[in-house]
């Protein structure tokens, strides 16, 4: 079972390493969209530092949404999804492996890049580390929740903005507590509640979403 999960995991990593474009696009979007804000709202450091946590989180959410669109579609088109569904291993576990691999090439890159963005947004240097920490705990939940939408839309007529309509409502709690964790940390207030809730959301998402994703994919394969 673990071997099958590892095989899927490594396959997905290798696939995204060979076609580096898509994850590079995610990162590029993150950076490019952020650079619009100082131009749009004005480059005053006070203002930028205040809105930085929210903007970085919203952009991370949108970047994850963008990256999710093709999560299952390619496997569905070339038939490998069918093989996974018929494997003697629960589809839920293979999905978990796929989502982990996807997070490594999308969410983790955003996490690693976010301190740079926080500095670009004039956040105080000593609090910059809070941004990647909250993204580290939050983006896996975003990918897991988004995977439900990606799976539901396999084979649908529409895509793109549709995915956003389906899953952003469910992602909003992650955003609220992710930004809350940074804000409370920057202001030096007790922020442990936010971290605990972010962690709780991640654990619940890890336990529950693979079943919804698997149900949606089986539906697509019928």
């Amino acid at each position: 079972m673990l071997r099958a999960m590892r095989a899927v995991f490594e396959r997905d990593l290798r696939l995204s390493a060979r076609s580096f474009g898509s994850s590079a696009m995610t990162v590029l979007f993150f950076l490019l969209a952020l650079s619009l804000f100082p131009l749009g709202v004005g480059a005053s450091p006070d203002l930028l530092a205040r809105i930085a946590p929210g903007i970085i989180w919203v952009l991370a959410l949108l970047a994850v949404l963008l990256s999710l669109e093709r999560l299952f579609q390619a496997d569905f088109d070339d038939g490998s999804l069918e093989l996974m569904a018929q494997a003697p291993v629960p589809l839920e576990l293979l999905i978990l492996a796929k989502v982990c691999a996807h997070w490594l090439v999308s969410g983790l890159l955003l996490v690693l890049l976010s301190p740079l963005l926080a500095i670009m947004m004039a956040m105080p240097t000593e609090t910059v580390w809070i941004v990647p920490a909250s993204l580290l705990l939050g983006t896996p939940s975003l990918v897991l929740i988004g995977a439900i939408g990606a799976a539901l839309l396999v084979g649908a007529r529409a895509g793109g903005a549709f995915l956003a309509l389906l899953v952003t409502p469910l992602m909003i709690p992650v955003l609220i507590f992710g930004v809350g964790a940074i804000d409370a940390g920057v202001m030096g207030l007790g922020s442990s509640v936010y971290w605990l809730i972010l962690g709780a959301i991640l654990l619940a998402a890890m336990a529950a979403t693979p079943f919804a994703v698997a149900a949606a994919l089986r539906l697509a394969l019928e």
Partner: protein
Amino acid sequence: MHALANPLRFQRLVDIVLPWALAGLIISLPIGLYWVLAVAPADYQQGESVRIMYVHVPAAWMALFVYLVMATACAVALIWKHPVAGIVASASAPIGACFTAIALFTGSVWGKPMWGTWWVWDARLTSVLILFFLYLGFMALKDAFDDPERGRRAAAILAIVGVVNLPIIKFSVDWWNTLHQPASVLRWGAPTMDPSMLWPLLFMAVVFKLYYVVALCFRLRGELQAQRVTALRMAQSQAV
């Protein structure tokens, strides 16, 4: 439940329920409106604008109730492949979305004179807005596939996932101390509302529920007929 899986039998049930619910609605709606607009007292703080509550609160309750009905029907449809439950869910969705829109709109009309703003991003308002988007997502996903059955089942999964939002809405005013007032009817201990306002409110809740039953029956009738037409057309084209 399995007895109702037969669309024809279900249609007969709808035909029996509809006249009674319709009669109940026609009788109770004027009584309810008269009660809340003329008889019920004005609030000592809010004045006459408290009457918005008699529409706002039942609509918000119905927004949650209809979602619960919809999600339950979706679960039944997925688990037992119940043919009628899926129709109940898709017929309920637009009604629930309307109730949610009414709750949001009346709340905002009430908020302007009372809070001094049309909208605040407090936990209750935001989570109800999420509910509205969930309804829209459900309806859009249902129609996003060439095969209507596929769309109905994909939307069913979304509806079940969205149930996590319901307890958040219900308890948002207790968990977060925000602008929206805390629960005053469905709470531990006695309601904190005066009986002269509580009774008309509960009566309006019943009126709203009757309206839901009536609207649902009409929509169910339409959907069942549409299904029959499709089935007959298929049979005809195969015969030729």
